């Protein structure tokens, strides 16, 4: 109907405002997605950093991209959790019985994931700057970094959506977070892969997070991005499309 289309973005704004409150009122969420990555960054730089041979003069410069991906990965369990509770509490049914576009409720959550990650990442970058992080990158490179981080967020968000929409229990909804938490740890996010044992190294070098981390590093330090950027984009886009497709299927089957 005409009116529903006219109000689409306004309705989505209401949905966004609502679930942003779920983020800002949950101390647990704020700790996991902002404070913990910052604490890890402090730990790595001031406690472990001296012993890690990253090949860069400042370890924080090497570390930041991985910390950013980790912050995003940490936020993903909460996306499923928020979606799951909305469905279980009947909030989605309430929205779906109102004259609002069907997809607005779901997209509200996706947008919330994006916006809340932009905020936490900005905070983390500010802390990194205070810790001495410096990048010679220009505006275009920063924009590219922002784009890749946004793409990574969306990819994980749609995976989280599948879990949140199809889970039978709260634990099931949040369980998706655990394997995702591990990906940054077994990659070149914290240490170069060349010191890892062969099997682990093979996994680390060929999993999506490594290519994303390497791309962001290259962009931030004006190094050639080479093929890595295309590998990173291909991973993100391919997984996102598949996840989006499955999430939508579950979403439509629910009603």
């Amino acid at each position: 109907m005409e009116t529903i289309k006219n109000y689409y973005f306004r309705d989505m704004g209401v949905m966004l405002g609502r679930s942003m409150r779920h983020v800002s009122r949950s101390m647990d969420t704020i700790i996991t997605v902002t404070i913990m990555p910052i604490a890890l960054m402090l730990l790595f730089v001031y406690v472990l950093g001296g012993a890690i041979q990253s090949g860069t003069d400042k370890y924080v410069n090497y570390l930041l991209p991985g910390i950013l991906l980790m912050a995003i990965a940490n936020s993903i369990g909460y996306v499923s959790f928020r979606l799951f509770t909305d469905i279980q509490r009947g909030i989605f049914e309430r929205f779906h019985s109102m004259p609002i576009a069907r997809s607005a409720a779901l997209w509200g959550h996706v947008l919330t994931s994006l916006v809340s990650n932009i905020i936490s990442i900005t905070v983390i970058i500010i802390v990194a700057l205070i810790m001495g992080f410096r990048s010679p990158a220009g505006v275009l490179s920063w924009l590219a970094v922002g784009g890749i981080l946004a793409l990574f967020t969306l990819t994980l968000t749609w995976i989280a959506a599948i879990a949140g929409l199809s889970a039978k229990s709260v634990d099931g909804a949040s369980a998706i977070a655990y394997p995702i938490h591990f990906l940054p740890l077994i990659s070149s996010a914290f240490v170069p892969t060349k010191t890892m044992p062969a099997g682990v190294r093979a996994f680390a070098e060929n999993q999506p997070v490594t290519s994303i981390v390497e791309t962001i590093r290259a962009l931030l330090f004006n190094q050639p991005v080479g093929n890595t950027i295309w590998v990173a984009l291909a991973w993100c886009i391919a997984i996102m499309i598949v996840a989006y497709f499955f999430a939508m299927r579950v979403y439509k089957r629910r009603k």
Partner: protein
Amino acid sequence: MKNSIQVKGLHKSYRELHVLKGVDFEVEKGSIFALLGSNGAGKTTIVKILSTLLKQDSGEATVNGFDVISKPDNVRQSISLTGQFAAVDDVLTGRENLVMIARLRHLDNPRQVAEDLLTRFGLIDAADRKSSTYSGGMRRRLDIAMSLVGNSALIFLDEPTTGLDPEARIEVWKIVKELADNGTTVFLTTQYLEEAEQLADRIAILHEGKIIVNGTLAELKKLFPPAKVEYIEKQPTLEDIFLSIIGKK
């Protein structure tokens, strides 16, 4: 248009479970209609079909003159649903919940609408507390208040008093009566015979997938002649009628 709801030959199965097996009824505009049935009878299924959350397998359902399948947006525009379990956002305060719904209904003054409803439903003192701190009765009142935002012509209340203490139940009854006095059509489901007796202009009993009785309370009582006991004439309660019809007595 005399009827707010018109349902004909409604069938619905969940896989092999045949829940609705040809349901027919009408709800007159401005009336309170109670759909009575035991747990699992299919009341919620009917409510979901009428509020466009679920599609029937066959049969026709018209709500406020709009077919639920071909004109779902028009249907949604003209109804409000209060589901079986209070659908309030626990993280938000009572006021924020109401403002949110008022915004989604694109009303001009969401804050004022929220303020008025909070006052009317005795929630003004708790307005700025998270609704997770509310009692069951308060949650239900907030839930119903959220459905009144925008003054829909027809409101669905799916077991509005299940799980409430007697006092809270009476408060909800008062709200329902006020709604009907203001001309809103109320479609109510309940497992409580007394509730139907108290509130409804018309009562339909759903049993084994069909409406087995449909009439006013007076009509229903006529179906069941008063039992003669020595010298006192005992009026049947709706419970007697119900149990006798479904053959459990």
